[in-house]
């Protein structure tokens, strides 16, 4: 156990930590856009962000921290002028008013762009199926989708969705906060508590019915070493005679894990 990398905490924490690992006893509504599931309601966005850190905000992380610090959104003059142009072009149907600061002066936001929170398919499926706290509607006609319909939609998007989802649930049941790992060349990134508090500990790659490619392995290992993380390879197993795309066979998936890390033996 001495060789396991421990989660590294961040120095600056711009969010207060809530102990809830996921939203409990609430009804959230998300819209399936064809790529991901988006949340528009402001309160829902807050609960998702605070409880378990689900989803990704449409605004950059620095911007959110700046707003939390000063309490007001800052905007450059060029952006303000651009927004004025947009207002002329598209008109404004907004009922609310929002005050922003442009070069130190407080002004009214001429063209409010609502921020959304995007959930990737595995995350949305988890909130919908396991926690029953998310109702997902079709973004085009507004009809609510059943679990089976959703499963089909997600499987059409990505053929290996069932194995990804199995890995997601397996890791989630061990209290990890899971984000998409394309930043570091993996499928998932595992955080303790969330990206606001800790650096990612593992980069997850899935191995389904194949061996680990040697050259790919080395490159991933190098990336993981330079970013102070560990590569976690999850081997996903499924019985050959069953249909992996069916939702009823989900519990037949089994997982086995192994973590790798480059070792420099010249220093002992």
């Amino acid at each position, binding site marked *: *156990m*001495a*060789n*396991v990398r*421990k989660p590294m905490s961040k120095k600056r924490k711009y969010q207060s930590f809530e*102990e*809830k*690992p*996921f939203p*409990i006893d609430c009804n959230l509504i998300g819209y399936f856009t064809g790529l991901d599931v988006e949340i528009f309601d402001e309160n829902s966005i807050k609960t998702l962000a605070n409880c378990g850190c689900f989803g990704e905000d449409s605004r950059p992380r620095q911007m959110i921290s700046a707003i939390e610090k000063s309490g007001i959104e800052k905007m450059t003059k060029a952006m303000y002028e651009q927004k004025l142009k947009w207002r002329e072009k598209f008109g404004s149907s907004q009922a609310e008013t929002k005050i922003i600061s442009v070069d130190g002066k407080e002004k009214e936001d001429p063209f409010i762009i609502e921020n959304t929170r995007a959930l990737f398919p595995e995350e949305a499926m*988890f909130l919908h199926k*396991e*926690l029953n706290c998310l109702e997902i509607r079709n973004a085009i006609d507004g009809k609510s989708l059943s679990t089976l319909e959703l499963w089909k939609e997600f499987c059409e998007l990505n053929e290996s969705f069932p194995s990804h989802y*199995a890995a997601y*649930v*397996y*890791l*989630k*049941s*061990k*209290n*990890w906060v899971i984000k998409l790992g394309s930043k570091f060349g993996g499928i998932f990134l595992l955080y*303790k*508590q969330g990206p606001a508090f800790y650096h990612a500990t593992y980069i997850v790659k899935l*191995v389904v019915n194949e*061996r*680990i*490619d*040697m*050259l790919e*392995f*080395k490159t991933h*290992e190098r990336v993981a070493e330079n970013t102070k993380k*560990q590569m*976690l*390879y999850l*081997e996903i*197993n499924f019985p050959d005679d069953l249909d992996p795309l069916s939702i009823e066979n*989900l*519990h037949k*998936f*089994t*997982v*086995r*894990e*192994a*973590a*790798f*890390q*480059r*070792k*420099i*033996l*010249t220093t*002992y």
Partner: protein
Amino acid sequence: MEDNTIRYDKLLNGSELIEFENRLQDYSITAKGQKYEEYNEDSEDIQKQIESSTDDLCQLLELKRISMSNKRSVGIYEEDSNRIRVNSILGKFSWLGYMENKNMYLKPHEALLLIEMNRLVVFYNEVIISLEQAYVLFFGKNSTLTMEEYYVFSNLSRIGYGVMIHDSEYDRKKFLAINNRKKVKKEDEMIWCVLLQKLNLPYKHEFVANERELYLKTKVNLRKHFVAISGHSYNDDDEDDDKELYQDEPPSKKLKSETNEVDSNNFIDILKTELQYISYEKFFQKFCYIKRKQFDKSLESSSFKFNFDVFRPKTHFKRTEQLASYRIIVITYKDEFPTHSQLEILKRQQAYDVPIVIATVSENMKFHYSLCVL
């Protein structure tokens, strides 16, 4: 090389010694040279540069080197048993070689390392073996190691580690012998096991499973001590444990539950000890239906094996008293990477848990070590 050694009947005088040494120091090959943006082998500049550097290298290799012939150990190669008997030992060999019938023997790869380091002269039919010949002889018909394995061995030993070929039987015996020497009482060890279990840290599951009665006894005793020290009554959340204490289940069932615990205890479970997990455990239990794949000995087989046991350097190294620090699997880039199940089989073969390191050797004999956590 050994064939070209000229033996001086007289001793060299001081000025000659200095002259020989200085000549060696004057020559040094450096990687300096002009950098070209476009590389043409036909251009004159490059041809000149290549010629001059090859000349330098030849001159350096041709230089006479001086050393005293009695500063090296002497060994004789025994072809039948493929080993080297050392007749005169100079210096310390520490972890190299083994004793048999009051004679010291070296394995071929160990001898080759010593020849490369200029510490050993080996005779074969009264003729000194040159370095080239040694490679041919030792890696010929009945060699124990492949070339890649030897390079890993030599690399690790030059760094300073003690490297030995893995022998699982020998390893198991050594581990038992060391444990017996420590003479830890069963009762004392059980207390540690119970405490470690309480803290969700790894403990000896097999030992606890075998000594079930002692385990229950120590657990009850520890609770009494807890009440006596703190003055509170014992409010433990795991009431199931209490039931387990007083119920008389058949021992086979209990053993099974213990072995399941071994499988679920994993490096990825570290966040299960967090307060967040404990207070919301019921919710987590709802969706933990995807399990870890159970290890089945009969279904799986592994073509991989441990090649070496590596020991951290120590001033007073004793082979019988030190446990290995790493176990090395040597593979080349052309080989297939071991699967999860193959690695798990290897892990379970060990007498005691040691970090597994996979050494990959590339075609240009560069090494890359990666630590594997299971």
